[in-house]
């Protein structure tokens, strides 16, 4: 049997989505993690809780509120319409925005933990050596917290690949735009085409296993968690 053209299209779309989301999450998540790790602000608790929400909320709840928020009457929808880019649901970029929310804790938390584990000392030393803030980040924090970033990138990527409920709620199942692998598998099962479903589902299991295997064995510090 093997993969159909529609399967390949879904796989390619999923990889594109997950890669883009991972890059965006590292860019957005790093400053948030940095702030959460070092601040003594009374906002630390609330911000940390908001970031962690997708860990506990059912994806349908998140998807439903995203659908309302990004719809024509929602605040995000009115904002995107006023910018002239239209509405986000049923588009690739809608999935990107949703996935960034959904996978955020998987990226922020490992980076935050890694930075917290560094402590103040290396940064103070660097500061006495006249390293500026950017210099301190790139030559001290980044190398020392590398395992945290590695874990964050892999978990963010893998979690986006495995996303289903949110995509189902705001995707609209459009081939090439929002029909990702998990939705394609769901369709096969619903249509009782179990043979095709097995191909994709088994590939997904193997892929996820290899990703996690890489995470547990290749992590630069060999740090187990």
């Amino acid at each position: 049997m093997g993969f159909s053209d529609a399967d390949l299209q879904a796989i390619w779309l999923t990889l594109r989505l997950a890669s883009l989301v991972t890059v965006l999450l590292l860019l957005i998540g790093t400053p948030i993690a940095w702030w959460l790790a070092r601040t003594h602000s009374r906002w630390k608790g609330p911000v940390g809780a908001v970031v962690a929400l997708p860990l506990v909320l059912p994806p349908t709840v998140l998807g439903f509120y995203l659908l309302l928020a990004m719809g024509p009457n929602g605040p995000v929808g009115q904002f995107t319409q006023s910018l002239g880019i239209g509405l986000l649901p049923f588009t690739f970029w809608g999935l990107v925005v949703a996935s960034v929310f959904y996978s955020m804790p998987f990226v922020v938390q490992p980076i935050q933990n890694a930075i917290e584990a560094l402590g103040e000392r290396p940064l103070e030393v660097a500061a006495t050596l006249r390293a500026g803030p950017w210099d301190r980040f790139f030559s001290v924090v980044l190398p020392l917290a590398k395992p945290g970033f590695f874990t964050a990138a892999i978990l963010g990527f893998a979690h986006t690949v495995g996303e289903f409920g949110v995509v189902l709620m705001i995707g609209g199942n459009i081939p090439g735009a929002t029909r990702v692998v998990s939705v394609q598998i769901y369709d096969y099962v619903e249509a009782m085409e179990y043979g095709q479903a097995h191909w994709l589902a088994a590939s997904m299991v193997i892929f996820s296993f290899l990703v996690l295997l890489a995470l547990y064995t290749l992590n630069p510090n060999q740090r187990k968690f």
Partner: protein
Amino acid sequence: MQTPRILLALLALAVVSASARAETVQVAVAANFTAPMKLIAEAFAKDSGHTANASFGSSGKFYAQIKNGAPFEVLLSADAETPAKLEAEGLTQSGTGFTYAIGTLVLWSADPALIEDGAKVLGRNKFRKLAIANPKTAPYGAAAMAVLKGLAVDQMMMPKLVQGENIAQTYQFVSTGNAELGFVALSQVTKDGKIGEGSAWVVPAGMHDPIRQDAVILKNGEGKAAAAAFMEYLKGDKAKDIIRSFGYQIP
């Protein structure tokens, strides 16, 4: 201080004697039939003393679950194919299948002014997204595709189509305004016998194959009094009135 204990004893007696006569039937129900099923289950409990425990979902999922030993005793499917397939595989009490409802397709918009003159709104093509249920898995989706083809607008609509995984999600896309209009089940937009909100075009039945929804007793329900009683109740006038009031037809 004796009263509470006596009351408790009476209550226990009532529970025991009731459970001796009344049984519970596990019913798997197609998502589009959620609202009528709730009313039917209520009436069934009142009239028969049995309880109908309903699980709502898609026919495809129920098929997979039933094949793998789910404890359902009756299936109210959204189509005729799933019960037929189960029957062919020996997973039903054979000969118990019948059509309990025929679905009506409706083109619906949450905007009260959008659909003024029936199907012409499709030809004018002044909207962004048209929602349908997944034609591959949902009978209402397949019917919607047939209507688009019949009106010769399927090619024009292709780039505007968004698919809900089932008819409930399709309704959600339209009711939140994310799709301006969509093909949903008349039962979803019917309140007290007429279209509740927005604007709609009820698709003439001749434009697509009838959306026959079949019910069947499953192997688990074979010989169970409550399962048989529920099926009989579903064929009765009270249930039929409820079913019709939601915009379904009865064969």
